[in-house]
């Protein structure tokens, strides 16, 4: 049994590499994402200063310095190095992004599988729940939730997970609907497999590329959401985040003066979110071969 498992794992990882080979944008996305993960993990080693560290030069606070070799993205009103802030901010972004994405895709895939496979009343009920989820405006919901339950990063993750599963659920359900009548699924039934077995071993593996696609996309959405929340002042006060950086420049209305202060976190958000979308697209191509180029 173990021998078979190692072979299967090896094959699994190889096939993930295959996904990116064909899609150059996907590869770029994967590389950018990997860079940000490195950034998040090794933040203390990479960042020249602490995130809240106020820097003095000749006894005076280095306020609002434009970018220079010492401070690649300049400094804030309080003399903090923006480059270091962005680096430390990647931790919040990556954590919220990845955790929310995983939560969203687990719930979404499970609902999609059950709803699509069993059909009937179960499907009807679950899809009405999805409709409900779509009816709730996302950002206001998260803001209210976080305001009520506390401004912690975990609450943000849960808030995102409570709503965003609605999209993968619908899409995966559609794919399950088309898969469940395919001959190989019928063959499994004829062999005597139980419904649970069929869902787990026949249908789920074929739905996996779509799951991965939505995990990556959900990561993009989650990071944007977190940035939005922090920008509006609802972020976790204990964590440095890109949205918070933007929040600070906004409340003192220094955007026109200190363009570097806006550029740095903005660029970081764009890059990481894009990487999520590119990876998501690469996986989507696997599911729909017609999207592939020759």
């Amino acid at each position, binding site marked *: 049994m173990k021998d078979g498992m190692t072979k299967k794992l090896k094959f699994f990882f190889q096939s993930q590499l295959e996904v990116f080979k064909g899609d150059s944008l996907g590869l770029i996305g994967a590389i950018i994402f990997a860079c940000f993960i490195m950034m998040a993990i090794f933040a203390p080693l990479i960042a020249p200063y602490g995130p809240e560290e106020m820097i003095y030069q000749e006894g005076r606070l280095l306020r609002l310095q434009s970018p220079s070799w010492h401070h690649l993205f300049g400094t804030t009103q309080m003399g903090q190095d923006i480059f270091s802030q962005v680096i430390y901010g990647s931790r919040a972004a990556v954590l919220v992004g990845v955790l929310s994405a995983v939560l969203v895709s687990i719930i979404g895939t499970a609902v999609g599988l059950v709803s699509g496979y069993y059909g009937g009343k179960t499907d009807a009920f679950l899809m009405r729940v999805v409709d409900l989820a779509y009816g709730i405006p996302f950002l206001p919901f998260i803001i209210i939730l976080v305001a009520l339950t506390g401004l912690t990063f975990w609450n943000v993750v849960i808030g995102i997970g409570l709503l965003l599963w609605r999209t993968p659920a619908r899409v995966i359900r559609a794919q399950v609907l088309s898969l469940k009548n395919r001959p190989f699924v019928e*063959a499994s039934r004829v*062999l*005597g*497999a139980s419904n649970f077995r069929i869902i787990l071993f026949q249908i789920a*593996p074929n739905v996996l590329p779509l799951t991965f696609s939505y995990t990556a996309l959900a990561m993009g959405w989650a990071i944007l959401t977190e940035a939005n929340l922090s920008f509006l002042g609802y972020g976790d006060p204990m964590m440095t985040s890109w949205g918070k950086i933007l929040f600070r420049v906004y409340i003192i209305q220094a955007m026109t003066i200190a363009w570097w202060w806006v550029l740095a976190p903005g660029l970081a958000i764009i890059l990481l979110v894009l990487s999520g979308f590119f990876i998501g697209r690469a996986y989507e191509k696997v599911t729909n071969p017609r999207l592939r180029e020759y």
Partner: protein
Amino acid sequence: MSSLMERMLRRQPTGQKNEGKSRKRTMHVEQDEMIEVRDLRKYFPLEKGFLSSLFSRERTKFLKAVDGISFDIHQGEILGLAGESGCGKTTTAKTLVGLYAVTSGKILFGGQEITELMVRDRKRWARTAQYVFQNPYESLNPRQTVLDAVIDGLKIHRIGNREERIEMAVEALSRVKIMPPADFFDRFPHQLSGGQRQRISIARALVLNPKLVIADEPVSMLDVSIRAEVINLLKELTEQMRLAILFISHDISLIRYICDRTAVMYLGKIVEIGPTDEIIGHPCHPYTQLLLSAVPVPDPDAGRIRVKLHGDIPNPVDLPPGCRFGPRCERATDPCRLYEPERVQVGEDHFVLCHRI
């Protein structure tokens, strides 16, 4: 044929709740266990829209896909089921394998009635009846290796441990001439040709040592030059393993080649059934005659005598009264338009459903 498979299957409990019954089944089997189908009907209700189901007084309409058919399949025999699309052959097949529940009628196996058991305990029936699908490109899970696909049945029924399962897979793959079997274990379907995929589907069906194998158009999606591989293989296997095969095809020439007996279906009824040579040589039912006359011949000079046909196939939901083939039949007379015909015997083991015999 005392293969490892056979020994395993006799010894191993099937993990069922009624141990008593399974013990009786494993007391198996040099006798001819026949499949008997008696007056099988499968109707599909047609769904009405929400509003019409509330307000309309019409009774639910049914699609009578299979409307009262009877036949036998003996072990060691290949029974052909011929007919065009929509005649009910696939529905019959799926009902026989337990994928659909019977609307009415009886199915017996080895003299015991199993009509309800087939669906209620489909897992157990899976040990007796298996299915080979038409589309070799869709009947294997693209994410399962060959080995996984073949031993899936063994895993489901908890037969054997890993080594024994591998041995059984080797045996099944050898039977379908996938050689050497071990080389193919880790391959995925997209790495195999159509003919190989189909043979692996057969191996998957055989690994549970079934008594009945239903082959639903097993070669229609394969290239012509390799069809013989699968066809000749099925014939061999029937002899070697004393299988009963229900061979479904719209290609009469193929049915002539491989089937011992043939049943011709039209709009849910068996219009003619008998030994294949009889049916091809002396077709009695006008539809059989039509079917045979429509087969193109690879001879540019052969003039074919075609049976004349009126009109198109009627709507299977709104069937006219009387014989189903009536509206299109040249020889139709008044009784044909009023009463459904009875089965008439026209030869030893040769029956026809027609008024005009």
